[in-house]
């Protein structure tokens, strides 16, 4: 195995006794305060100088990303009053158009996305994709507390309109709620204590707090069967959502819905379950979107050992994600050519009417998720394929593929894709405003040099770009 051979080779690598002694014969010096101050101030100046990222958000008239009016996407609208037959100009928030699937896939397939036609296709895809490490970035799941933010004016009915000013989760987009361990509606504080396995509902008025009630989450003690692990909260009007993992390995994401119209007596109204570990969540206009991620390994080794081949390719439960116990329809599974043995599962649940509205899964790499009031954008980084590696230069070491999923008030629909050069940091590298999607990437041009058997990569200076 690689590891053993590498270890035994590296064990022989060590400094000579002479070199070590020479290096150790360094006189111990007293720390000089002035030197430190000088070094620190020089460092500060250098940092200020090097922080010149060009960040101009400008409308690109040549490159139209997600422009529903572009000439290449001449589609027949359903006449939803968004007359845009003229293939010109920039997008103007037409992302809620319902386009028939067959026409959407045209642009999706250009960037390597297609809907699965059978479960067998998925099985074969999983067999092909090598063991991978998923490129998750550290997403802002539990938002920071932001002081002095005005209350969310998009709150659904049921919330009193005269809520006192209060701080809130640091949501990236106003009107799109993100999960947090503390939620606040101006009168009550909802605090998820993971250690104590419960949610405290605390009244907070005139500077005084009082625990009004508690929601105890099953914790495997005597009397309750299964321990589930709470992760984050969402507050949707008079519904409190507790998102949990079903066990230590987090095979499933479980959402508990509680009616908190009566704060002293929270009542559980629903429970939903989807495969995978909890990844992210959003609330837009009363619809709760839960995003989870599930790995489905068919081969489990970088060096392709046959040890873990799944035998039952007819047993869907072995490799197809499930929602509330049922495998997802293969028509709802989008396959990406950014190969990965991981499903990203998005579900939409109407918290007001208490019903599941739709679900969608992406089989492929999913690095960052940005959610605006209209769409979810999934960005995934992709490195150069070995086939692309030839001696010479390349514009970028990596690129980022973006998939757009329209929210449509809970009816998820993948309706656009594009690819940009470079890589992004996280969800904050993306933004949508007035129908224009903007993304900032860092590009690393590369030169390849052949050295006998190997190809060496020489990375040139990176630069930043905003699309």
């Amino acid at each position, binding site marked *: 195995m*690689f590891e053993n*051979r590498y270890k035994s080779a590296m064990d022989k690598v060590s400094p000579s006794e002479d*070199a070590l002694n020479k*290096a150790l014969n360094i006189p111990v*010096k007293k720390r000089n305060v002035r030197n430190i101050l000088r070094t620190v101030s020089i460092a500060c100046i250098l940092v200020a100088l090097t922080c010149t990222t060009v960040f101009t958000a400008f409308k690109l008239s040549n490159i139209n990303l997600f422009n529903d009016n572009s000439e290449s996407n001449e589609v027949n609208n359903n006449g939803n009053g968004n007359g845009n037959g003229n293939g010109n100009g920039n997008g103007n928030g037409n992302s809620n158009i319902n386009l028939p699937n067959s026409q959407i896939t045209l642009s999706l397939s250009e960037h390597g996305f297609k809907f699965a036609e059978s479960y067998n296709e998925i099985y074969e895809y999983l067999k092909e994709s090598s063991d991978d490490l998923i490129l998750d970035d*550290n997403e802002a799941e539990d938002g920071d507390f932001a002081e002095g933010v005005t209350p969310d004016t998009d709150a659904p009915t049921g919330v009193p309109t005269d809520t006192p000013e209060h701080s809130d989760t640091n949501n990236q987009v106003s009107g799109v709620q993100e999960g947090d361990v503390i939620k606040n509606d101006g009168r009550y504080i909802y605090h998820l204590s993971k250690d104590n396995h419960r949610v405290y509902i605390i009244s907070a008025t005139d500077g005084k707090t009082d625990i009004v009630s508690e929601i105890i989450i099953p914790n495997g003690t005597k009397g309750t069967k299964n321990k589930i692990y709470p992760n984050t909260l969402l507050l949707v009007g008079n519904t409190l959502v507790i998102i949990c993992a079903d066990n230590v390995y987090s095979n499933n994401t479980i959402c508990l819905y509680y009616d908190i119209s009566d704060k002293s007596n929270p009542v559980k109204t629903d429970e939903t379950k989807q495969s995978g570990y909890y990844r992210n969540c959003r609330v837009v206009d009363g619809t709760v979107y839960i995003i989870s991620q599930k790995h489905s390994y068919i081969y489990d080794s970088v060096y392709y050992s046959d040890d873990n081949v799944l035998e039952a390719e007819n047993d869907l439960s072995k490799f197809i994600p499930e929602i509330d116990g049922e495998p997802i329809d293969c028509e709802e599974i989008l396959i990406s050519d950014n190969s990965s043995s991981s499903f990203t599962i998005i579900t939409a649940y109407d918290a007001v009417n208490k019903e599941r509205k739709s679900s969608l899964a992406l089989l492929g790499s999913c690095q960052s998720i940005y959610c605006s009031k209209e769409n979810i954008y999934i960005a995934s*980084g992709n490195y150069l394929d070995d086939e692309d590696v030839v001696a010479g230069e390349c514009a970028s070491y990596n690129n980022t593929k973006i998939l757009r999923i329209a929210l449509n008030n809970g009816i998820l629909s993948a309706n656009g894709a594009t690819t940009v050069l470079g890589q992004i940091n996280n969800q904050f590298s993306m933004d949508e405003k007035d129908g224009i999607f903007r993304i900032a990437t860092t590009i690393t041009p590369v030169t390849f040099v052949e050295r006998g058997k190997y190809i060496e990569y020489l*990375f040139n200076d990176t630069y930043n770009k905003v699309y």
Partner: protein
Amino acid sequence: MSNQLLRNSDKNEEILRRNADMVYRIAYLRTGNTHDAEDIMQEVFLRFVKYSPAFESKDHEKAWFIRATVNRTNSFFTSAWKRRVVPLDETVKSYDEMNDSEVLEAVMALPKDISTAIHLYYYENMPIKEISEAMGKSESAVKSLLFRGRKLLRISLEDTYS
């Protein structure tokens, strides 16, 4: 500076000896030859003595030395290339006794950050979280380095494995 910040030189030596091999190996991996590795090791030791960092734990100490070594090798490359003194051929292919392993050569041919991540993972047995702290990168960046490294190694070592 106050005496409180002065560290016992015996203790210094103990810390340096403890980390010498690790520092040297990383420097060797990144520079490709023994001489530069020795230079880097000396520079890292000098920095340690000069700044006398107070370590909270063994992990912190390890991370500090790794980061210092990586930084020194980066500066080394910048200055070397600017001076145009060091021809690439020499640094990549140096035939020491230590370098007789095909696997080692394959790792050394990888881009520097990738080879460092591979080394820390497989040789130092560090979990990804610690590697990310030591290299000053996000965990996802480390994961992608490892991913890329494995892929490249698989290609270059394909002949070796059945």
